């Protein structure tokens, strides 16, 4: 199985360890992983702000980079959400539809496609609070959102439960948005940071040592908020835990 690894721009620039963990994990699982070196971004920053025409060239580049793979896999939930659910600035040719349909977020790829049932190399003896990125939760349907009347399920929790020693904490508002929201984080920075303060405080009060998420963008924002108000909590991407990070 030939995999195209999509490393979102902010992971490339600020959380390279998440890209590395994703690559190593997929290799551990015996996959042929290629990192197309001309990749930049999925175009979500412009799309999120309403500038769809400005997305066209970036989306076209994405399709050129990622055509021909069995799957395109990424540790960036909200970016995958953009590729799958929006990404309509360019003509929807067969090649475009093909790339969009084959793009998966890491958790859903491990859970739905590979159906991985063990991570024997992983051990994480810590209390973690799970953070759902809203695009993955309500867009990609990673888990049952609290608003809907449906049976509970959580793909990230299911995967993490296979990790030795891990313990989950439950915040008062498990799936409230943390306030990142892409460009929202700067256009509405006071509300955005207040939401972030509340989110990290909620997890800390619940006893979490770490906030773990399938999306680094939310965590970049949350880390900035936690550091500013002095909430002692650490952040780790789910790819790192599943790849065997101990702390």
């Amino acid at each position, binding site marked *: 199985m030939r995999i195209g690894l999509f490393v979102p721009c902010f992971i490339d620039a600020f959380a*390279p360890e998440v890209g590395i963990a994703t690559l190593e994990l997929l290799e551990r699982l015996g996959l042929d992983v290629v990192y197309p070196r001309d990749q930049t971004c999925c175009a979500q920053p412009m799309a999120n*702000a309403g500038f769809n025409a400005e997305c066209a060239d970036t989306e076209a580049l994405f399709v050129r980079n990622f055509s021909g793979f069995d799957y395109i896999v990424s540790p960036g939930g909200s970016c995958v959400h953009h590729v799958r659910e929006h990404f309509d600035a360019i003509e929807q040719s067969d090649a475009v539809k093909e790339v969009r349909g084959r793009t998966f977020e890491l958790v859903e790829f491990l859970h739905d496609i590979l159906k991985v049932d063990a991570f024997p190399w992983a051990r994480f003896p810590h209390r973690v609070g799970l953070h759902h990125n809203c695009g993955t939760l309500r867009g990609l349907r990673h888990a049952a959102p609290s608003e809907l009347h449906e049976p509970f399920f959580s793909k990230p929790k299911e995967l993490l439960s296979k990790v030795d020693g891990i313990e989950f904490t439950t915040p*008062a508002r498990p799936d409230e948005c943390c306030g990142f929201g892409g460009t929202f984080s700067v256009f509405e920075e006071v509300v955005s940071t207040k939401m972030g303060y509340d989110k990290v405080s909620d997890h800390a009060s619940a006893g979490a040592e770490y906030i773990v998420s399938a999306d680094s963008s939310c965590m970049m924002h949350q880390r900035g908020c936690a550091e500013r108000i002095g909430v002692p909590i650490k952040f780790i991407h789910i790819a790192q835990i599943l790849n065997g990070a101990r702390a």
Partner: protein
Amino acid sequence: MNTILHPELRGDRDEAPTAPDGHRLDHAEGTSQPLRSRPEPQPRGARIHGRRPIDQAEAAARFIAAPEHEKMHDERLWDLRQKRDREMHAIDEWEELRTLASAIKEHTLTHLDEYLDQFEANARANGVHVHWARDAAEHNRIVHGVLHDHGAKSLIKSKSMLTEECGFRPYMASVGIEVIETDLGERIQQLDNEDPSHIVVPAVHKLRTDVADVFARTIGTDATNSDVHYLAEAQREATRPLILAGDAGMTGCNFAVAETGTVTVCTNEGNADLSANVPKLHIASIGIEKIIPRMEHLAVFIRLLSRSALGSPITQYTSHFRGPRKGGEMHMVLVDNGRSARLGLEEFWTSLKCIRCGACMNTCPVYRRSGGLSYGATYSGPIGLIIDPTFNARKYSNLPFASSLNGSCSNVCPVKINIHEQIYAWRRELVRRHEVPLAKKAMMKAAGELLSRPTAYRAAVAAADAVLPLLPRFIIYNGLNAWGKHREVPHPPKQTFHQWHHANRGDKR
């Protein structure tokens, strides 16, 4: 007991009503969490400068700068959301009900002309005078005309978002007719000369001490006494005589049933019944999207409305108005005010399914921390973001950006409006209509160019010699370092993933 984010708000004792056997009443407001707060000056809403774009972010920042208000507002509305969840879980067919309600509304909206005609014919057969109003001004003139014909100088009315939309109270003041709001929250807002901040709980942004200030100023209560029972009783004593002396009564409408020509109004205070039944003249203002075909459909909506709104199984009063009582007169005003134009908007017409429950506001993490008045519009919160721009795209051009697009609003919506997708679509629409700042456009254009050219992009990432590396500059830069004002900037690592990959997997294609 519900979970709470701000434990310091918990009262020393639970003042909620209890049943004779001592257990806490599990109905409507009976289950609201007892919370306490310290007095603090009330933050006011958005600053209005004519038709210039409302700066929601600025007003929201002032609301957050009043922590007693912000915390109370957030917890109070989250409490409603939790109660809503409990009611939802008690009904196995909840999601089917939502699907059904959505389908009924979509059917009705796509056959609106037929059902409106049917409604009108049946209402007339019931002895009701039916009027049609193209817009707010015509609505106000029609109502004034009816009142004038009866020599009415005072009007008691129950809560109606439609009349807010029409600027009805200021208009009535200008023609010398006294309006007395009979919903407690709406009355508080009227006495404070402030718009409602929420479509179901209009004064939810106020602390009890704010209400004490308003009542001390307007009905002469003791400004130092903010006991809710005292305040409610004082207001009742002050308003009842006005209600009893009212020349005419007015209600809004939750549902207008085409097959019967009747109007249904849901309240918790019984104030619609007072407004409709005390005076001899009853006027009902009805938005044309309130029509549903048959009485049997009403059951679907009644099951959803109060559960979604307040987390109570039903409102205390569900009143059906068919025709004038003996010796009285009843008028219905069917109001368009932009609705038929909205029905023609391909991406936005389903916003007309809205039954005004406010569930999207209660769940919205932005709304809860901003206060409804920060939106500077009749409709606030998620539903406001997609309705307000249809009234004035320039004035409300910032509103669709006051969202993190988290999507919780769409999931709680009892009629399944895809609210967050419409917010996203409005952003595109506003860009198409050039209703966004030029600086933002220039920034996004530059980002689009850079991100589509790998070589230039890599050169920019490598040039990490500035205060902030590339990413915060193109996603985050707005000239004021808005990222770093209230949170720390990310720590740039020694090596990007790209560089790491080159060093460690360079041999691989």
